[in-house]
């Protein structure tokens, strides 16, 4: 019997329905999160399930699943502990945190403790450098950790506790988290409200508040100028510029009909092409490169998806996982 129950199939349908009818392949990433939510990793059976519901082959799904770091290729623990060892956290002590945890737990990168509680990994930048060194448990943040606090967190997890993250919601299991990653709401009472901003996030704002700094001249009722008004202003500015040369800055910044005014001439390294050039280049590019020619979206028709979903639920799973291995989809 397949691990993917009718409920999962219903969820798969919900995911697919988020995308345009002929673009169901867009549902692949959330579907991979969904199968990971069931098994704790993307198993050959999970690959087969995704392939079936999207009308893809297993090699196509496997190629995607193996590209992304968050899809795990072997069973994981209930809690994924990720320690940032990228440059900033690293020099602030993240490497020591990782090394200590690795020794304490007796596992290396991408390995799980024997009791199945914790999978450890060293992570690249987790976008919280102002809180460094950071680690996450199932992607919720523990900020400013040192080796001792990190060991405390994993010990509590292994003892069955649920330490509260510094920022982010109360902890759930990695499988429960994967449901959210598939795009479903966090149904737990109060979880969305958890986790107020930390001091580093508010730093500049607090200074501004303490010293009464705000941006002057803000009037929410400032009118949005219509094209007719803009054209008129541009014409006036032009007349004014011609009357009094050199042109005042104000006039040159005024919008010019059909053009892009001063903004198009910003001289940077990545200086944007003038609109007309860009259009010409784009037209040439389109002519020279048949777009999306080799990427015909598979599983286009809704009918086929429905059929696949039904057939998949009818067929038992047993043999299919072996098939997935044969395709080399999973290592």
């Amino acid at each position, binding site marked *: 019997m397949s691990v993917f129950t009718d409920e999962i199939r219903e969820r798969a349908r919900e995911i697919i329905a*988020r995308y*345009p009818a002929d673009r169901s*392949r*867009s549902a692949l*990433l959330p579907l*991979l*999160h969904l199968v990971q939510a069931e098994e704790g990793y993307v198993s050959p059976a999970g690959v087969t399930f995704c392939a079936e519901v999207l009308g893809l082959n297993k090699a196509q799904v496997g190629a995607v699943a193996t*590209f*992304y770091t*968050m899809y795990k290729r072997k069973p994981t623990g209930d809690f994924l502990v990720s320690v940032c*060892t990228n*440059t*900033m956290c690293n*020099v602030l002590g993240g490497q020591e945190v990782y090394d200590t945890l690795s020794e304490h737990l007796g596992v290396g990168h991408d390995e799980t403790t024997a009791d199945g509680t914790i999978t450890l990994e060293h992570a*690249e*930048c987790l*976008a*919280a*450098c*102002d809180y460094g060194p950071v680690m996450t448990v199932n*992607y919720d943040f523990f900020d400013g950790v040192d080796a001792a606090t990190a060991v405390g967190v994993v010990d509590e997890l292994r003892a069955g506790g649920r330490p509260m993250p510094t920022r*982010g*919601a109360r902890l759930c299991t990695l499988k429960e988290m994967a449901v*959210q*990653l598939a795009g479903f*709401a*966090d149904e737990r009472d109060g*979880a969305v409200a*958890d986790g*107020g901003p930390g001091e*580093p996030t508010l*730093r*500049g704002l607090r*200074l*501004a*508040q303490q*010293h009464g700094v705000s941006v002057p*001249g*803000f009037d929410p009722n*400032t*009118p*949005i100028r*219509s094209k007719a008004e*803009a054209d008129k202003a541009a014409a006036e500015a032009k007349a004014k510029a011609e009357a009094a040369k050199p042109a005042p*800055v104000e006039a040159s*910044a005024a*919008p010019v009909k059909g053009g*892009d005014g*001063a*903004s*198009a001439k910003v001289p940077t*390294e*990545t200086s*944007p092409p003038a609109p007309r050039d860009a259009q010409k280049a*784009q037209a*040439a590019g*389109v002519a020279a*490169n048949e*777009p999306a020619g080799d990427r015909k*979206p598979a599983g286009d028709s809704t009918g086929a998806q429905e059929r696949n979903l039904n057939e998949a639920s009818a067929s038992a799973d047993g043999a299919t996982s072996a098939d997935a291995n044969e395709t080399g989809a999973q290592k």
Partner: protein
Amino acid sequence: MTTPRPETLAKLTPVLTKRWLSPDAWRIGTYEQLDGYAALRKALKAHPDDLIQLIKDSGLRGRGGAGFPTGLKWGFIPQGDGKPHYLVVNADEGEPGTCKDLPLMTHDPHALVEGVIIASYAIRASRAYIYIRGEAVHAARRLRNAVQEAYDKGYLGRNILRSGYDLELVVHSGAGAYICGEETALLDSLEGFRGQPRLRPPFPATHGLYASPTVVNNVGTIASVPPIVLGGADWWKSMGTEKSSGPMIYSLSGRIVNPGQFECSMGVTLRELLELAGGMQPGHNLRFWTPGGSSTPLLAAEHLDVPLDFEGVAAAGSILGTTATQIFSDQDCPVYATYRWLEFYHHESCGKCTPCREGNYWMVRVYRRILAGQGTHEDLDTLLDTCDNILGRSFCGLGDGATSSVTSSLKYFKQDYLDYIEGRTAPKLSDKQLVGAH
């Protein structure tokens, strides 16, 4: 801590961050009390072309690193072409050092949602996607909640505020791939493929998502739209510099007393930012820093007074990037820092093009050798030669970015390299770490 001088404090411009102090701003009721959705009501009464013009007039430039003029990008979308149009928000924040979008989405998610609706209306898109980094789970929770609240209130869905305009918005979580912050790789990922960059042209403006006209904008860019719609282009331009208008969230991290987010007028200097952040930590002296994340060439103490806007940083030989200011001191080693960044690029290279895939792989090995005290003078030439073969020869900006810290650290801190090679600095990596690495 000494109080910053009034003229430095005056550089603070709380606009995008202003609601973060209200603990419930992520709820729609609180957001509405704080100007929320007022910009949308105003925008829906205007003609879409006038909104595009407004954004052009504001001088708003992309907050994701490249600084492309936003209004111009919107204007590239062909109108009346009969094709569906899409707005895709790049919320795949992952550039080392960058940490401004996550707090924005966590503490003020409706600001992004409102910006999405206005931008979609302007470019005539009826579907929009927010592609959020997979690891950003709490931001995604808040964002999904905000989108649902917006649907329930009639700000999304059919006939928004009885204007006749329809918009569907989906929050789509990634799965851990830095490359998906590159806009065409993001589009491939959103279409359900491996996230690898596409050849350009054609550009997303004509052949983006599902080969249809698409605008891809950063979170900060889209969140800037509601305040511009409310306050107007002239007000927006009262902040920043002539060619880099508006406020910018500067993310300060590292060896400083008070790391954090500082939203300032564009063109603020690191000297001023350090003053706001309470200065360097005791016992630390500024040695090197990134103006905009690890893909931007390192700057040194001599660059304290460089105006941090697009032009000022470019003139100093670096890139403004995402204004992720990572600050390192004389106790940090630029060779080791660069090595760790290279490990990152090596890990995150998507493998599509040879220069980036192989170049980063080999440069990591050269760095390990140098840091283990086994480097040679020739290694330094090898590094520069490898960078020459990556920069400008990679399929996308990831490869280019990888070379930034290598070439800039060799430019400013060559002596640090020589000290490892010539045995004056003790090896930082052991022989053991060299064996069977990765």
